[in-house]
């Protein structure tokens, strides 16, 4: 597993993808943070980070697919998945290594962007508990996003299809509860609420650690990584 993890991390920096992801994310994150948080704080208004993190979720739904689109699609296209699948590394270990590599990229870039908090503390009086809650929420949400991207990448050998497919699914899962106001049928509303990644984020924004949300995001990760393993097992046993 270590060999695949190392190779994946390395591959982000032997192609432009890793640099593009970090640069674009930090630029957008810094801009949004400045617009919706720092400027308000410096003008004496409430330094709420709510808008910043809401915008960030949609930014992630566009940028996370950059990290996951090639993860399996490229192996398939280059024929290197045969190398991995005939090695001693079990399928679940291969899937986990690729997931962890993409998640390390996601999490480490996010943690770098937390340096912005320093500015906020300098010019305003934010609540540390709330900020911490948001940060934990983003790290959990990111894991779910990455798992979904990894799964979709395993379905195709075309990186573009993997990326567009992931963006579509992530946006749908983010926006699904917004449709609720237009739906009268209660069970559909329940399903939409259950599917909604966004609605689970709520308690973190109050600085409350929501164990149910943790379970929800962990379940999303487990289900999509399990499905990825099944994709490869099914291909072997087809």
């Amino acid at each position, binding site marked *: 597993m270590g060999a695949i993890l*190392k190779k994946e991390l390395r591959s982000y920096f032997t192609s432009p993808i890793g640099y593009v992801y970090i640069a674009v994310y930090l630029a957008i994150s810094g801009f949004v943070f400045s617009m919706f948080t720092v400027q308000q704080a410096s003008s004496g208004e409430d330094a709420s980070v709510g808008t910043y993190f809401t915008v960030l979720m949609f930014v992630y739904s566009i940028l996370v697919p950059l990290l996951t689109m090639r993860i399996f699609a490229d192996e398939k296209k280059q024929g290197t998945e045969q190398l991995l699948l005939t090695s001693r*590394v079990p399928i679940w270990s291969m899937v986990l290594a690729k997931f962890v590599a993409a998640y390390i990229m996601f999490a480490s870039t996010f943690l770098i962007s937390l340096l912005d908090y320093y500015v906020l503390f300098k010019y305003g009086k934010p609540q540390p508990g709330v900020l911490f809650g948001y940060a934990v929420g983003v790290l959990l949400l990111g894991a779910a996003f990455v798992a979904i991207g990894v799964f979709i990448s395993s379905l195709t050998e075309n990186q573009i299809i993997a990326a567009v497919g992931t963006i579509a699914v992530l946006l749908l899962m983010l926006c699904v509860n917004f449709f609720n106001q237009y739906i009268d049928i209660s069970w559909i509303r329940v399903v939409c609420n259950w599917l909604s990644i966004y609605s689970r984020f709520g308690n973190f924004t109050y600085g409350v650690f929501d164990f149910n949300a943790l379970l929800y995001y962990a379940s999303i990760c487990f289900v999509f990584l399990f499905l990825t393993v099944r994709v490869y097992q099914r291909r072997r046993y087809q």
Partner: protein
Amino acid sequence: MIEIKNLVKRFGDKLVLSNVSFTVGDNEIVGFLGPNGAGKSTTLNIVTGYLSATEGTAVIEGCDILEDPQNARAHIGFLPEIPPLYPDMTVAEYLSFIYDLKGTTLNREKHLEEIAEVTRIADVGQRLIGNLSKGYKQRVGIAQALVGNPKVIILDEPTVGLDPRQIIEIRNLVRMLGRDHTVIFSSHILSEVQAVSDRIVIINKGQIVADEKTEEISRVVDGRRRFTFSICGPQKEIYAALKQIPGVTYVEALAGHELDSTQFVVESQTDVRKAVFGILAANDWPLIGVEAMGVNLEEIFISLVDKPDGKQAGRRITTPKANA
């Protein structure tokens, strides 16, 4: 040692392999021959654990590939039909990755140097794989199969797309590997298999149609003898006389080349040269040339793979293996 027993593979309703069985002994080089789409790659993919079999077993060095895949794969070095290379890695980085992937415990530097030496890629160690020629890529693909010094080496069409010089180099490499490894070497190029293999297994339409030692395959497959006689004289009469010789099964008159001669191709169950000479001498028909024509591997191959479906299973030929 590799033991393949009754492999059956279906893709949906399509039967791709039907009761494929053969054994490869220690340090034996087996050429796995068949036309495109015959089931070579499917068989090798099952043996290496990339695909599962619908029925049957593949046992590598005593480990079943389905029941004990981790240990079975530890004994295999596999070069798939498309070399599994990462174009953004240098050759050295790639081999180092394979070393880690296989969990090799040999001395990293020394082991990888030896492999680079054997496969003659030491001079491109620091070059990106994506920038290498087809021949070098193929050699890097073989090099990754050798990492960890596995007992069994499986090479799926290793010479496809190479120039003649590169093909000879790969053949020599395979021959050398056969000294210490059990090798399966698949190809649809007959002369290649003949040049490197101790034994040839021919597959067609998912069935094994021949399994013989290389030097014996032509004798076992086809006991016919074939000669070309260049004879001066009346064509029709000579033709009739040749047909009457006991054992002759086929005569064909071709255009002559010199001295108003006619070339006759004669196929027979026995050596009929003395009988032909006697008849020609008795009739005063000068014989100006004789050529014994062997039945080559191409003809054997075509004769086996062109058989109608129903006759294939019964056509299978095999004799006991020395080391099976």
